[in-house]
C-alpha cells in the first residue's frame, strides 16, 4: 500500500495542476459577477482548454479521461476557491442519459453546450405523492398529434429557475403497472405553462423548487427512449446520482468538535478533558476516518478500472446521522449559548445550528436513511426485497391511502 500516484497519474496531476495555477480565476472583476455568471465564465474557460467534463468523449467536449483522472482533477480543483458548481446535475446525471438515449443529432446539439456551461439543465422526477416511491409519479402526458401535453407537478427540483432545459418523467399510461406506463422527455424550461415556485426549507433556505405544468406542449421528438420505457431511461439518470450529489457535511467534522471542546469548560476544566466528550469525539472520528479510508479503497478500485458500487451508500448513511448527533451534542456543550444563531455573537454556534437544522434534510435527500439501508441490504448483502403490493397492478388501481 502506498498513497502515491502511479507515474501516469502523477503526470496527469502535474498537467492539471499547472493549468489550474495559470487559469484559476482570482481577479476582482470576476468576483464581482453573480455566482451563476462566475460559474459560467469558469466553466467556459475550462471547456475551451479541454478541462470540462473530462471523462466525456472528445466529440461531446471532453477528453475521454479515466475515472481516476476525474478524481485527480477534482482533487486539484478543490485546492482553489472556485465558483459554486451549477452544472452538477446536468453534467453528472443528464449528460450520461443523453449519451445513452438521445439521437445523434440531439447529442451533437446539446452535449457540448452542457459541457461548456452555456446551457444549464435540471431534473424533474420527484412528485409530492412519490417520495421514496419515485415511480408512483402522477404527472400526466397525453398525446396530441406530434406533441404531448403535460399536466401535473414536480418537486425538489434544484436549479429550475436558472435552467434552460430539464428532463422529465411522466405517466403516459395509467392503466398498466406503475413502471410500465412512464415516458421520458427533455423540455424547454421557458416553455409556456411551466411555473416555478421556490420551496422554503426548515433551514429558511430555498435550494429546491416546485414546478407546475399546465398544458405544457412538448414535441414527440424530445422523447428519450420508447413510449412506456421512461423508467429504464430514468434509471440511467439515477445511477449517476451518487456521483453528482455526494455527501457534503460542510464544516461539521471532528476538528470543529475538538475546537469547541477546547474552548468550553466543564467544572473549570476544558471540556476536552471530559471522558464523555472524549468518547463521543472518538466515535465520530472512527466514522469520519472509516469513511475517508473507505474512499481510499474505492479510489484504489477505480484506479484499477473497477466501477463504483452500491457500497458507497454508506457515506450518507453514516455521515448524515453523525452530522445530526454531533451538531446536537456541540450545542449541548455550548449550553444556553447553543441556541444562538447570531454568528456575530457565537461564530461556531451559527455553523453548528445550520448543521443541526440541515441534517434532517441530508438524512432524506437522495434516498432516506431507510432507503439507503435497504440498498445495502438488497444490493450488497443480497437480501430479498419486501413483498410488493403494487407489483403487476395497473397504476390507477394501486392503493394510495
Amino acid at each position: 500500500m502506498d498513497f502515491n500516484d502511479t507515474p501516469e497519474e502523477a503526470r496527469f496531476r502535474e498537467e492539471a495542476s499547472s493549468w489550474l495555477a495559470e487559469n484559476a480565476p482570482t481577479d476582482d472583476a470576476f468576483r464581482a459577477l453573480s455566482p451563476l455568471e462566475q460559474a459560467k465564465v469558469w466553466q467556459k474557460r475550462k471547456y475551451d482548454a479541454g478541462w470540462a467534463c473530462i471523462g466525456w468523449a472528445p466529440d461531446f467536449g471532453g477528453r475521454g479521461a479515466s475515472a481516476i483522472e476525474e478524481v485527480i482533477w477534482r482533487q486539484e480543483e478543490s485546492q482553489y476557491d472556485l465558483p459554486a458548481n451549477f452544472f452538477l446535475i446536468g453534467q453528472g446525471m443528464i449528460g450520461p442519459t443523453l449519451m445513452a438515449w438521445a439521437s445523434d443529432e440531439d447529442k451533437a446539439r446539446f452535449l457540448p453546450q452542457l459541457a461548456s456551461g452555456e446551457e444549464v439543465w435540471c431534473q424533474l422526477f420527484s412528485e409530492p405523492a412519490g417520495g421514496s416511491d419515485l415511480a408512483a409519479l402522477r404527472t400526466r402526458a397525453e398525446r396530441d398529434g406530434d406533441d404531448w401535453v403535460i399536466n401535473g407537478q414536480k418537486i425538489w427540483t434544484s436549479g429550475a429557475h436558472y435552467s434552460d432545459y430539464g428532463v422529465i418523467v411522466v405517466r403516459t399510461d395509467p392503466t398498466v403497472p406503475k413502471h410500465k406506463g412512464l415516458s421520458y422527455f427533455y423540455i424547454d424550461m421557458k416553455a409556456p405553462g411551466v411555473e416555478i415556485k421556490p420551496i422554503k426549507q426548515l433551514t429558511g433556505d430555498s435550494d429546491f423548487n416546485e414546478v407546475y405544468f399546465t398544458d405544457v406542449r412538448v414535441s414527440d421528438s424530445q422523447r428519450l427512449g420508447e413510449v412506456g420505457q421512461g423508467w429504464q431511461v430514468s434509471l440511467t439518470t439515477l445511477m449517476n446520482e451518487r456521483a453528482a450529489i455526494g455527501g457534503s457535511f460542510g464544516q461539521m467534522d471532528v476538528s470543529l468538535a475538538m475546537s469547541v471542546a477546547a474552548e468550553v469548560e466543564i467544572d473549570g476544566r476544558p471540556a476536552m478533558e471530559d471522558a464523555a466528550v472524549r468518547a463521543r469525539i472518538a466515535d465520530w472520528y472512527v466514522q469520519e476516518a472509516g469513511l475517508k479510508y473507505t474512499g481510499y479503497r474505492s479510489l484504489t478500485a477505480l484506479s484499477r478500472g473497477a466501477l463504483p458500487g452500491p457500497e458507497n451508500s454508506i457515506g450518507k448513511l453514516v455521515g448524515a446521522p453523525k452530522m445530526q448527533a454531533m451538531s446536537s451534542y456541540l450545542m449541548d456543550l455550548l449550553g444556553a449559548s447553543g441556541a444562538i444563531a447570531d454568528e456575530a455573537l457565537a461564530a461556531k454556534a451559527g455553523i453548528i445550528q445550520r448543521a443541526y437544522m440541515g441534517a434532517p434534510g441530508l438524512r432524506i435527500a437522495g434516498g432516506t436513511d431507510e432507503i439507503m439501508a435497504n440498498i445495502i441490504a438488497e444490493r450488497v448483502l443480497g437480501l430479498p426485497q419486501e413483498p410488493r403490493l403494487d407489483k403487476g397492478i395497473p397504476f390507477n388501481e394501486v392503493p394510495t391511502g
Partner: protein
Amino acid sequence: MNFEFSDEQQLLREQARGFLTEHCPTSAVRAVLDGDQDWDAALWQKVAEMGWTATVIPEAYGGLGLSYYELAIIAEEMGRSAAPLPFSSSVYLASEAIQRFGNEAQKSAWLPRLASGECVATVAMAERAGRLALEQLETRRGGSQLSGTKVPVADASVAEVAVVLARSDAGLEACLVPLQQAGVSVEPVLTFDTSRGHSSVTFDGAEAEVLGETTLNPEDWESLLDGAAVLLAWEQLGLAETALTQARDYALQRFAFGRAIGSYQAIKHKLANMYVKNTLARSNAYYGVWALSGGSDELPLAAATARVAAIQASTYAAEENIQTHGGMGFTWEFDCHFYLRRAKLLSLAIGSEAVWQDRLVSALAAQSAAA
C-alpha cells in the same frame, strides 16, 4: 397505590387541551415564528385570564394556590401546542424564584402582578458558552447597582422584570431588576427558535434589589432549577407526544409502493421507539411532579431523571418525526420543525443533557449513601 392525577386534574387537562387547540393552533405558532413579534401577546392575555399564570402562587398573593400537579398538566399542554409564550421563564422560573427567595415586600409587590399575568418576568443566568458556573459569574452587584451582560436571556424582550443571577462581595445573589430603566439595554439575539424571543441584556449600573436581601445558598438555586426541570420535562413531554402523533398520523396516511408507510418495520419500529421513550419520560415526569409537590428529599434525583428522560424523548421524537415525513417534513410549510426547534431550545435551557446526567448520578450516590 394511587399514582395518577385526580379526576379534577384530568378535567383540567381536557379543559387546557381544548383551550389551546382553539386559541393556539399551529397557525399561531407559525405567525410568531415568521413574524416580528417575540410572543403571542393576545394568547398570553387569554392564558392569564384562565388563571394559568396564577396556578401555584399562594392565594395570599393573588394566586390560585393549586399544586404542581395542576401546573404540570398545563405545562404538558403548553408543550403539546408549542405555545409561543414566555410561560417557562415567567412561571416555572421567575415567579418561583420570587416566591422562594423574596422577602414579604418583594412577594407582595410582584407575585399578584405575575399571577394576573399583567407582568411577565424572566430569569437571566447564562453569560458565556458552556455550563453555568455559579462561582464564575461576572455580573456584579455593588450597592443597588448591577453591571454585566447576560446572554441569551429568554423572553427578556417581553418581560418587565428579570431575576438576575449575580455576585457581590458577599457572594451569590438573585437580583430583581426592572428591565425598563436607563441602566438596562435589551438587544435581540437570533436563535433557531424565533417563536420565542431571546436577548442579550446588558446592565450598566442598573437599579437592582437583592431577593430576600441576602446572599443565596447555591443549593437553593439548584433546588429552584430542580423544580423548573420537572415542569420543563412535562412541557417537553407534550412536544414529544405531538411529534409522535404527527408521525403516526402521517405514517397511516402516506402510501409508498401500494401500502401505508406505517406498515414498514423501519417506520413501525421508529414509532415504537418514540412510544417507549415517551412512556419512560412520562412515568419519570410523574415521579418528578410527585416529588416536587410533596417537597420530597428525593426531588434532586427525581427531577434529574425526569429532565434527562424528557430531553431524550423530545429530541428523538422531533428528529424522527421529520424523518418519518420525508422531504415534506423538511419544508418550512409543514409544522414538524416547530417541535424540533422547541425541543432543542428547551433541552439547552437550565443545563443540557450531560449536566443533568451528572446531577442524576450525584443525587443517586447521595441517596444510596443516605439509605
